[in-house]
């Protein structure tokens, strides 16, 4: 049986605990039970990418996961990028400088994808960047400034 489970997991380096019905999605659990509202919901069927987070180092759609599936996992959400002092991560700085956001609703998802991409592939080509970014919808920016932000972030992370 067990339609309700206790869930223990790590998010942004901190331990969290909660209880949820098995049918509760991970994104709802993060937002409602753990109070981490930075990750947004745009479609609940895996197309828009707004809910994208990192699970064990890989970007996933948190609307397409059950909270119970994250038991014991290591997650990263947008709240884990900036320092506790408020100092922005270089990726966030790059988005700021290149005006890679307008309303900001899709932005956390984009930031997480940018993070994984540049971690795994610091020398990503423009085509590789576009491939990764193609899993996200943005209605405000038209994407060009987002691409410029990712390019700037890549160069900053390479120490240029």
């Amino acid at each position: 049986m067990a339609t309700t489970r206790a869930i223990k997991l790590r998010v942004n380096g901190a331990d969290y605990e909660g209880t949820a019905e098995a049918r509760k999605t991970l994104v709802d659990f993060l937002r409602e039970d753990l109070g981490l509202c930075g990750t947004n919901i745009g479609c609940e069927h895996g197309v828009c990418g707004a809910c994208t987070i990192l699970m064990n180092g890989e970007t996933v759609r948190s609307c397409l996961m059950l909270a119970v599936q994250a038991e014991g996992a290591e997650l990263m959400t947008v709240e884990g990028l900036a320092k506790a002092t408020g100092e922005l991560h270089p990726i966030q700085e790059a988005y700021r400088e290149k005006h890679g956001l307008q309303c900001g609703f899709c932005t956390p998802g984009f930031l997480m994808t940018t993070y994984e991409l540049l971690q795994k592939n610091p020398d990503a080509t423009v085509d590789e960047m576009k491939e990764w970014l193609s899993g996200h919808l943005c209605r405000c920016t038209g994407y060009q400034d987002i691409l410029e932000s990712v390019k700037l972030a890549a160069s900053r992370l390479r120490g240029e």
Partner: protein
Amino acid sequence: MASPEPKLPSELPVTQPRYVGKDTPRVEDPLLLTGRVEYGGDIRIPGMLHAAILRSPHPHARIKRIDTSRAEKLAGVAAVLTGEDVKKWSRPVFGVPEGWTGYALAVEKSHWAGEPVAVVAASDRYIAEDALELIEVDYEPLEPVVDAVRAAAGAGPFVLEGKESNLAFDRKFVFGDVEGAFAQADRVVREKFRWYRSSGNSIETCVCIAEWNPVNNMLTLRGSHRSPHLILPALVISLGIPSTQVRIIQSPLGGSFGVKTFARYVILLSLMAKKLGGRPVKWVEDRIEHLIGSSTHAWDRHYDCELALKKDGTIVGLKVKLIDDLGAFAEWLAIGMLLKPLLALGSCYHIPNVEYVCKGILTNKTPQGPLRAFGLPPHYWVLEQLIDMAAKELGLDRIEIRRRNFIKKESFPYVSPSGNIYDSGNYEGSLDLLLEKAGYPKLLREQEEARSKGRLVGLSVVSSIEPGLTGPPMLALASPKIFTRTASPEGVLVRMDAFGKMIAEVGFPPGGQSQHSFVRQILADYFGVTVEDVQVITVDSLTMQPGTGPISSSMAIALSGAILGAAARLADKLKRTAGVMLEASPDDVELMDGQLRVRGVPGKALPVPRVAGFMLMRPDLLPEGVDGNPEATYVWNPPDRTIPDERGFGRYSVTAAGAQHLCMVEVDRDTGLVKILKYVMVDDCGIRLNPSVVRGMLMGGLAHGVGAALLEEYVYDDKGQILTSTYMDYLMPTIMEVPAAEEHEMCTPSPIAPLGVKGVGEAALHTTPAAVLCAVNDALQPLGIRITEAPFSPLRIWKAIQGGQTA
């Protein structure tokens, strides 16, 4: 006395603006980037319930019976709202023209598949959705009306109970001598077009949190409300609640594009809140609801158009007949989208004789609602396509025919056929710039070469006008009783505190267009402080000044005007106080570079914060009429707008931003897929307060336009069932579908608007569909084909190529 409104940044009281006109980092960004901004969906209030909406599966049905008893018994369910409650407690949702809408919930009859039929409030959304399944509804399906053209000719059935027609709106506008012009023309080009509906689809859906306290009859609404004063009248009318008993507290929005200016769901949630007797209830629209049920579809048009020309290509007349399938209701201000083309009937071209016949028809589909660009993109497409057709028939080059007809630089302010005025522009200059930057001759050669190899490569060069700040005068044509007004107020409060910091209060939340940032830019330059010294606060509907909010490309104009007006009033108080402090006449005191100084007397100057501080600390020394408060409010209104006469002749908008776009495409003849090879735009939106923000808006509009041209379509079957109810079928453009475009600036400052700005919020969406669609038709020219149904899906293109649709 308050000084006249600066018409250029150089007229600001600063030697060299540090912020206005520059790429200033946005104040909105840090919270957005760190996920710490509180969108409506993030709000939690103690005791808050969650709502889910049961929607009719039938395009047209009578509701014989609703039994909510099993739903009400489900553990966690607090209450269920039905049509019976809604009918008792409200009036039908406001709409223009009046009388063609229904209640916020289906009462006795459902009018479209997706219309709300019941609302459940429960402890969480999961349980609320469980409860929906326990509601029993007996429907008696009725024959739906689905074909707008037949409905326009009088065919039933009729959507609204008590109506003997589906023709909600029917007007003919004639400007100039249209019949005469057509009779004398050398050539008349005629075509029919079909534009299928799409919608705004902001990534954040609509959110409303309602709390209606029965003890003090206070209705508090939180969530994604774009413009509180826009929806307040609708609430007052529908709910019968005094305006001062409503408090709308806006959250930062995840985009709007027209979608969140609307009132239907706010009324519905308020009624749910009423049923709950004081407990707050939150509704977060899900994506399927947004696609089928939120009454925000836009522009479902059948066009029949004619363009009359002299043989040298001079356009002498235009006739536009259109039928717009409004869906089940003529709701809210959607009818304005039929009327907005009146503001720029000829676009950038001088077309003196124009007939515009428009019909708004009800059918059993999702109602239309506001969408960015408000009805102009299809109009510009049909016009540009007709011009391309005419060019071909007359053996003229696409550039030359446009040049010939452009409104000349010397003609501004230009009075268009409908009386609407374009303030400034330089279309020929923009065109020259566009062709130069795009390398047009080279593109022509590339096209030649590609064609010689059998490739389908097409080019287009198109124009558009983006009217800045429209609104009531246009709506007066559909509802003179309510909209006989020229006002579109935007009000702010500006204050300096004891520490020399500034506070600005605005009546709308951030939503992506950076208004809060440019408020800081203007105030910082005006008073010589830094942008970090300016705090911009969104205040709620009871605290705000009269305001319209960010709709219809208005904020650069109206908000600048409001800020400058308040700044001038504050400056006036400061000058009079400084006069006392400097022992000079206030008429000799000027504000410049953050100092109040005596004209012509160097050394006699005080920093602004000193003077503000003096006002706060020494009320005993203040001059007559100056209160001890360095604060001012101002409500800006567009000057010179008129109420249109019966012909529809009037002055509707304030500014006219202009754009010229070039698009080059290749069509794969075997698959119908379109690749955009090159895209260049020149935009003239007057002075750019923050260039990177303007550029971002243009690129966003471009992406939206590509979606509208090639991908986005709500498809209905012949029984009125929607077939595109998820993001698998309603296709939004991703980075892969949007070309890397070049953007260049032409600037003819507005002589009317503050700081010379023109609105740019709706931007490239006006122009891009025309650019892409005309380029595709140019690509198909060697095959003798023209497509006239948009979006141009691969299937439509392939069918046309197979079937040889004649050009």
